């Protein structure tokens, strides 16, 4: 029997209050894949991400990690699974009362037995990898928006997690910054074997790095396409998906 897929979403229904945002979501993410979630604003991309990382309990359906249900077990089970995740929220969501260094170090302090000086050394390395040397002791409010995103990436990758969730990583960066994010994602996948789940509408980035993508449709409230983004752009049977991936040119 084949190994259970790393992430499996089964019959998931997302609600916002009483309104159904998306329903009938079924897909799997294989290990070492860059998996993109695309769709119009308001279609539920972020909601899906929040359900996948366990911030919200699904109205129906399940999210499984290597066959283990995220919501099926106890709270401890869920926390253990979550320890294997790294999450980048749109805008970074850094802890405003802590310096960039402490933002990255906090996760190391919680989940490793590293000595204090080693913790700080690792945190400095993670910041340096994202080009933030010299900003270790700045507070989030003291650096610009794009540096906050890079610090968020440093924090998400602090523990070299197996699975990374990125919410709109390039939306607040300039085009060059967005391409650097693509490089980071590619390195994570190719060098570290990390699985990346990416919520993004940055077409250039999607074509460059995403192995597979799903399209969440706003009107029918479910996923209407799945496949490689370049292939979907040229060959999707759904004209809406082709128009979306064609940058609005039907």
């Amino acid at each position, binding site marked *: 029997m084949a190994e259970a897929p790393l992430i499996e979403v089964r019959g998931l229904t997302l609600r916002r209050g009483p309104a159904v945002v998306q329903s009938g979501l079924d897909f799997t993410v294989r290990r070492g894949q860059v998996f993109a979630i695309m769709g119009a604003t308001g279609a539920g991309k972020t909601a899906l991400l929040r359900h996948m990382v366990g911030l919200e309990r699904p109205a129906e359906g399940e999210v499984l990690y290597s066959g283990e249900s995220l919501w099926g077990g106890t709270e401890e089970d869920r926390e253990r699974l*979550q320890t294997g995740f790294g999450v980048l929220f749109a805008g970074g969501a850094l*802890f*405003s009362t802590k310096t960039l260094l402490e933002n990255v170090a906090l*996760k190391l302090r919680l*989940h490793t037995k590293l000595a204090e000086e080693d913790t700080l050394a690792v945190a400095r390395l993670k910041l340096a990898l994202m080009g933030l040397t010299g900003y270790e002791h700045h507070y989030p409010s003291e650096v610009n928006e794009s540096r906050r995103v890079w610090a968020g990436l440093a*924090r998400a990758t602090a523990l070299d997690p197996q699975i990374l969730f990125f919410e709109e990583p390039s939306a607040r960066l300039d085009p060059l910054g967005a391409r650097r994010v693509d490089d980071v994602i590619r390195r994570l996948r190719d060098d570290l074997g990390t699985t990346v789940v990416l919520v993004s509408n940055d077409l250039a980035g999607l074509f460059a790095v995403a192995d597979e993508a799903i399209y969440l449709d*706003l*009107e029918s409230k479910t996923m209407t396409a799945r496949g490689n983004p370049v292939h979907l752009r040229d060959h999707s049977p759904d004209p809406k998906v082709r128009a979306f991936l064609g940058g609005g040119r039907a």
Partner: protein
Amino acid sequence: MTSTAPAESRLSVLREGPDVVVRLGGAWSVQAGLPSAVELDRALDASPAPRRVRVEESALERWDSGLVVVLGRLEKACAERGIDLDLARAPLGARRLLDVARGTVAPLVGPSEADRPGRLESLAGWVREAPPLTAAVGLWALAWGRSLGDKLDFLGSTVPALGRLMLGRTRRLGLGFTLALQEAGVGTLPILALIAFASGGILSLLATQQLDRFGASLLAPYLVAIVVLRELGALTTGIALAGRLGSSNAAELATMVAGEEVDALRTIGVDPFDLLVAPRVLALVLMGPLLVLYANALGLLGSVCVGVGLMDVPATVYLERTRGAMSLKHAIAGLVKGAAFGFVVGMAGCYYGLRSGRNPGAVGKAVQTAVVTAVLGVVVASVVLTLFFKRVRL
């Protein structure tokens, strides 16, 4: 020569057999206001009823959204009365905008939703009839019951977090507990000094004046001292804390929720109760009694200053009688209240802060609700504790 007077919009209504002809002319602008539609309504309701309304341009200089609004109203009025509307000779641009507003074509911006209700229907949805009083009370009670469960849940998460904080299990999170203590304690001193001193003084003045009518003005120091120790010191502390810390805690936490900081904490496995709630609540519980001591001292000082300085009671007498009223019993009652008020203020601020929405607009509402609830909570706790102390003869 150019005219500086603003050109006016014109809307004229003519009856031509079974048809009503509406002529649009002049310069239309929203800023200048819309022309009166009384004449138009009269024409539509005239008898015999018109079969068709025809809209025509006649010397229309310029138009803007105002014209679209008028056409939209006309369309609705005609539909209600079963009259045909002929817009073929209305300005093409206005007709197109009307189509967009009606939802029959995609909006200029944003996605189109096939299942979206018509604009007019969705507007009507907002104007609901107010429910009758009985139903309103019932709905309120149900909502309150639901939120009570959530509040108990919050309490249930806070208490173990307080335990972990006191056992030092969460120290590696870098809690900023000292900062919370400083904020709750030292930060509150100036405002509390003023409130406590003033209310002690006012109480002394009123008590001396009123008791003087019965020749018992010398009992005033007793009365004031007991009221200050048992109630006034604690109450002023509670109000000062609700204003300063209830608001700042709610605002800080609500901003963190809006910035997804709290979600980020959860995903890295930090219980927000450990990092955000417990230090704030514990700081207030510890600082509450200390602040009550301080408020008591200032309240009594105010009372002595007014009694001696303003009401001409001899200083030795006033001081002697104030001291005579002081007892450990009264002081303890006040200190217990101080701790309770600190807890209430801490919980209110943290609860409404953490339960705030994930958008910046929710911060203001969270602060308002937190402060109102904190003040209310302080008063209710005071009543409950006063009854309790009476029971146990404290």
